[in-house]
């Protein structure tokens, strides 16, 4: 019996081992990348958050001192978190509503549909630095075309990127200009809604608003959820536009000029990623920069896990 049975498991085991090796070979680049560019620096960031380190002399363990500094003494942390909350509440929700609206519009347009779709999508592709530069010009309070037109209409002319009350709304306008990604995602979702449901609703005498409320919305709600959660994650990373707008508006720019402190004007555009840069690369306070990085990581992962839970059905699906 044993003699008869043994060849099969041995062959099977060989096959299994071969398959495992093959899988490992295919995954190898990413496994190395995961270890080197994700796991190692992440652990290292946590480690440095408990160290006093300026990047030059040897790191010294200081316990929770950096954490205490960031949470209770660093003047920008809570302000930056507040800005992020503002951006999540206003920018993300406006982007979702506007993206859905533009997506709906694009599915309804009969004439020139291709033209409109391209035009609505195009600004999303503009490189962020270039797009921010363009808006810094359009919205500059002195000679910008927007204030010129507002003045012509007899409307107030805000200071936009130079006014702490208007800098976040200006960044929001820039984000709405680049709505192309959400437009395409919503467009695809809207085209997937079964036509029969609209016809049935119409037979029941449902008007356009009721059809939207009781047919469209329930069908696309997973995509709306996806857009909200990825929007929050993107907002946690908000960096380039805020920094470039601040630099241009304050007039402090240049690779070799005086250092620019992010947040201009009056800290109204501070975000957590900019703090990592400012603390780590301008003030050489590696420990405190790592504290902000760890906090940024925790918040981002909390929202990512939300996304993973919502998507678990499709993740395991074959």
């Amino acid at each position: 019996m044993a003699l008869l049975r043994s060849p099969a498991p041995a062959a099977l085991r060989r096959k299994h081992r071969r398959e495992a090796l093959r899988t490992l070979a295919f995954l190898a680049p990413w496994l190395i990348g995961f270890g080197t560019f994700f796991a190692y620096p992440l652990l290292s960031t946590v480690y440095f958050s408990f160290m006093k380190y300026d990047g030059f002399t040897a790191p010294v363990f200081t316990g929770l001192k950096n954490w205490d500094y960031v949470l209770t003494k660093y003047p920008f942390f809570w302000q930056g978190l507040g800005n992020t909350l503002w951006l999540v509440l206003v920018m993300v929700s406006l982007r979702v509503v506007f993206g859905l609206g533009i997506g709906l519009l694009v599915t309804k347009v009969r004439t020139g549909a291709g033209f409109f779709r391209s035009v609505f999508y195009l600004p999303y592709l503009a490189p962020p630095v270039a797009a921010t530069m363009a808006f810094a010009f359009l919205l500059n309070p002195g000679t910008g075309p927007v204030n010129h037109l507002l003045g012509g209409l007899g409307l107030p002319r805000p200071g936009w990127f130079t006014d702490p009350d208007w800098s976040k709304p200006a960044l929001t306008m820039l984000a709405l200009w680049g709505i192309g990604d959400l437009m395409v995602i919503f467009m695809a979702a809207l085209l997937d809604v079964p036509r029969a449901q609209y016809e049935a609703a119409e037979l029941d005498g449902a008007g356009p608003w009721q059809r939207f409320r009781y047919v469209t919305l329930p069908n696309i709600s997973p995509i709306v959820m996806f857009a909200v959660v990825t929007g929050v994650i993107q907002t946690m990373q908000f960096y380039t536009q805020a920094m470039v707008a601040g630099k241009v508006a304050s007039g402090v720019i240049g690779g070799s000029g005086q250092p620019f402190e992010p947040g201009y004007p009056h800290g109204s555009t501070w975000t957590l990623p900019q703090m990592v840069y400012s603390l780590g690369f301008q003030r050489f306070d590696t420990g405190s920069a790592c504290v902000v990085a760890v906090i940024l990581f925790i918040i981002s992962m909390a929202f990512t896990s939300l996304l993973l839970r919502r998507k678990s059905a499709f993740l395991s699906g074959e």
Partner: protein
Amino acid sequence: MTTTSALSVPLPARSAQARVARRKAVLSWVGIHSLAIAAALFFLLPFVFVFLTSVMSDRQALTSQLWPAEWHWGNYARVWHTPGFLTWWRNTLLYAAAGTALTLLSSLPVAYALAKFRFRGRNTALMAVISMMMLPPQVTVIPMYLVWAKQFHLTGTLWPLIIPMAFGDAFSIFLLRQFLMTIPGEYLEAARMDGCGELRTLLKVVLPMARPAIAAVALFQFFYCWNDYFGPQIYASENPGAWTLSYGLESFKGAHHTDWNLTMAATLLVMAPVITIFFFAQKAFIEGVTLTGVKG
């Protein structure tokens, strides 16, 4: 009489109904297209104003006039011949081309394994990919910078940005995996029956079928590198010879403080390649974006 009236009554009623329906359709056509035109203005006018300012004279660019009095096309040549501009251009191309090629080479096998191999920990691996995708680059930048500066002495170059792309890019892996999931297993089985190894199957069967997804990933990655500001700011800022267009554009504004015309010409020159590529590869893009959103 009664029969004729009974017969004739519905007819005008139906045509009246049809007229109402047609009028409604025309009205909704007009409404929808007016909205679309208004939206198109919102998306296009920034480009128009930027362009109009980019061809103004230096003096006129200081005013709030909207229309150029004279058309100074030479502004574009002035920007092009700014010291450094060509270097930034070359560096950006190198970063984007090398980054894209390495990303594709390293990400495709990983995506294939995640989509088509059965192994323990596959779902965990996929979760890890998505987590990496959502990770703000600032979280890991400090230890990474220390490694590149102290172990490899590569700060002041773009290599710290290019080399990691040889080890898989989470977003590209995810997008390719989503597409490879849609390839029916029968094709792979047939290839294996013909005696193809996994690598041969990937190259001969999967690669040709996955061309749209590969095109989308290549475009996204190219654009990611082209647009990247944070990476070059961290690693390349100390050496102007390694600056990219995104980073250089900012310093260009610094050097030409009040010259909005030149800054806007430079801005358009930075946008131009991306916009040109988009017009040639629109379909691949839009398919790519929809692949990243989930169905249902």
